[in-house]
């Protein structure tokens, strides 16, 4: 009787394992098929870029983005193509987006700095905090924090339901470590999330207006490629703050947010 019960359990476990593997395979396989198309577009784009056909490369990269989505390398190559076309705004926008996905990548950072320098913009200095933040991107920090929280909660539940399962010192050590990871990740997520409302000017010599109307007088002009902080939106205008401290209203179409929120389309690739 006991042996049969054990066999049944093992059988159930095997069934579950098989079902899980099948589900995973089914999930991954379509992506892999889709990725093959995107890979092709990406490779063709690279070839066109290497041959100096930047317009063609841009078309292929953009098609890859439309088809599948974003990757740090794809955005980086796209930005390089824009750089070669001297389209500073879109080049910097795509470098920034690539950095958002892969913050510690030295190539992206180097080319972003070079672009800014080349086009008369001030590169941001690299600080220790920035380097710490850039160990992971926002999503990865979020996942890390979430997993740490989940592990802590379930660990806590087990401890509360069956206290004798986990000895108190072990529980304290593991729970403390998980909480620490959660707190660090939470800090990183909060800081990065609070600072992601910035955009890049993608129009030439854009006017900064004193109020959100086309007829309003212009207080200053912002250069293409300059990074601005987006404060709020009103109809077709958004209130931005430049790095030099100036702020004013600017036409929505003249600035592209680096991380498109729900209100923003991802048309600026």
């Amino acid at each position, binding site marked *: 009787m006991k042996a049969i019960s054990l066999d049944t359990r093992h059988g159930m476990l095997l069934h579950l394992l098989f079902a899980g593997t099948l589900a995973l395979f089914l999930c991954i396989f379509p992506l892999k098929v889709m990725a093959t198309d995107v890979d092709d577009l990406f490779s063709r784009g690279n070839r066109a870029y290497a041959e100096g056909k930047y317009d063609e490369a841009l078309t292929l990269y953009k098609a890859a983005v439309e088809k*599948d989505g974003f990757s740090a390398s794809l955005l980086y190559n796209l930005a390089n193509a824009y750089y*070669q076309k001297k389209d500073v705004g879109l080049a910097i926008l795509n470098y920034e987006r690539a950095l*958002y996905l892969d913050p510690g990548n030295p190539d992206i950072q180097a080319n972003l700095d070079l672009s800014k320098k080349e086009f008369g913009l001030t590169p941001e200095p690299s600080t220790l905090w920035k380097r710490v933040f850039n160990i992971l991107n926002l999503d990865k920090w979020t996942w890390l924090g979430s997993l740490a*929280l989940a592990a802590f909660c379930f660990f806590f539940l087990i401890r509360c339901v069956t206290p004798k399962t986990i000895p108190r010192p072990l529980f304290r050590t593991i729970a403390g470590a998980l909480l620490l990871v959660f707190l660090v990740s939470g800090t990183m997520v909060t800081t990065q999330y609070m600072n992601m409302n910035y955009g890049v000017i993608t129009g030439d010599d854009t006017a900064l207006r004193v109020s959100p109307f086309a007829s309003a007088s212009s207080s200053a002009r912002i250069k293409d490629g300059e990074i601005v902080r987006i404060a709020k939106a009103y109809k077709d205008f958004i209130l931005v703050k430049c790095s030099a401290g100036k702020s004013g209203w600017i036409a929505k179409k003249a600035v592209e947010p680096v991380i498109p929120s729900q209100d923003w389309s991802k048309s600026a690739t």
Partner: protein
Amino acid sequence: MDHSGIKPRTVKGMMISGAALLCAVGVLAFFAGGAQGKGDSGTISIALEPRQIPLNGSAMLSVALSGAQAGQPNLPRVSGLRFIPAGQSSEYHSVNGRVSSSVSYLYQVRADHPGDFTIPPVEAMIDGEIRRTKPLSLRVLNTGGTAGGTSRSLPPPPAGLPGKSAPLSEEEADQVVFLRVMPEKGRSYVGEMVPVEIRAYFREGLQATLNTLPIINGNAFAWQSLSREPQQTREVIDGHVFHVLTWYTAMSGVKEGEYPLSVQLDATVVVPGTPRRMRSPFGRSFFDDDFFDNFFNQGQKKEIRLASPPRKMRLLPLPKLGRPENFSGAVGRFKLGATANPKHTMVGDPITLKMTVKGSGNFDRVSSPALSSQEGWKTYTPSAAFKPSDSSGREGKKVFEQAIIPLGASVSKIPSVAFCYFDTKEAKYVNLRTKPIPLKIDHAGEKAQRASSQPSHSVAKASASESMDTSPEGRYSGGLAPIHVTLGPVVGSLRPVLENPWFVGAQGIPLGALFTGLFFSRRRRKMSHDPKLARRKQAKQMITRSVREMDRTIAGHDVEGFFRACRCASQERLGEIWVLPPECITLAEVKERLPENAAGIRQVFETADAVAYSGQPFTQVELRQCKELVIKELKNLEGK
């Protein structure tokens, strides 16, 4: 007429004055008494500024006494040092009827020879006690320039200025205060920087306060800022001792011609007055103390405006003949140097070119030297920093830093940089030129190869990819890092996962687990604090277990085991009700406590005992009936 020779009106006036004085003294005495009774004990403090002076300079020693009755400080004798009284100041404070006074005695300290001196403690009688200060040290340097205090931080005065004062003119001989302006020379080129010394002379013994810095008259000159702290010296001119304040500056002419040059200065001088009270014919009284003399006889303050006699300056024009195109207006004598860093670099990487122009002249017109050829280079606007080496700003060096970028690997050196100025001594234009700086420039492709050795997977693969490396142009141009050849992980949206509703919702699962855990934790804690509840729960568990045992024994037809389980279940329930350990519940206890009710329970106990001793047989049907009876009785007891 009185025999004493004093007129009656004078006597009356003296009486009135005396009465007023007595009243004042009374008020003072009242407050002084208050201060004596309630005030703090007297203190003495000393300060010497600066602590280091040149041999011909002086330092100011200040001895401050505070207390109800403070005498004069006794200055010690120091060989080689002279203490010259320079006045005293008194302060009275009355706060909420509490009066305190302080007197500061000032002395000018001069030295006869250079060396390190120690001023021993200064003593003074305050409130009947002798108070002493700490000893002070003074260093006297055998130099003519300023060396101490605030002057030490100033650059040395410009060379070539007249060091010793000229004899007094007729006008100056009658004045106690006068001003002189002394340019280094009487003629100069337009734009040429000429050092100027402005000197204010005060006769010794005169107390004066400066209300303004010297103000320069005339609009034909551009002036450098004055040295903030004047140099203080003591000079003897035509047998008269003067305290001299000297400011250093420089000026340059802005237009050709002959123009007067003069300065003015506002000051307040104290003209000593006559004593207001008569000395007592009966010797030195309490009120003859110098403290009261100083208090009542402050002298008369007078605001004056000093103006220097105008001096003519001849401003010559710069020659137009032979003026180079790159002449920016620099006039003086300069030297040019240039360095570059790094000297081994690659195409597209910036190099910092540091150009230094040093010498003397109008540095405000010294503009950045320029590369003689900019072919193959991208240049940026240079930054400039000027560091003066004298107080007038005429001498020093101006450093220009310029970012330059080689545009090709064919560049092997930085071209010479050129700077043009007008030499005032030679009276001609001079074009300075540095030597070219050799460089080693790598091709940007080498940079890419170097970059590929970094842990960047994509770059490494880019190096491996032949089609990427052999691109004819563009790929590595301008120092751009190469494109990536692997796609890497792809995301459908750039929106952070934090904004996805399913992700936010999923966080409810661990939080639910957390709250469940908290619920269990709280329940356990509650039970540990309520033994009755714990007992009930334990009894319930035991009864459930016993009922299962009953079923098992019925199935196995284990009569003895069945009744043992029945008795165990009953013991648990009764033990819970009577708050007794279950094993203490016996048939006798049951009979005593349950005389009428729960006949089934009693029967269970009796039968269990009987079965245990006699082995009475029961069928399975009987056992089931017995079980039903026990369960019924247990339920009946549960309510109690």
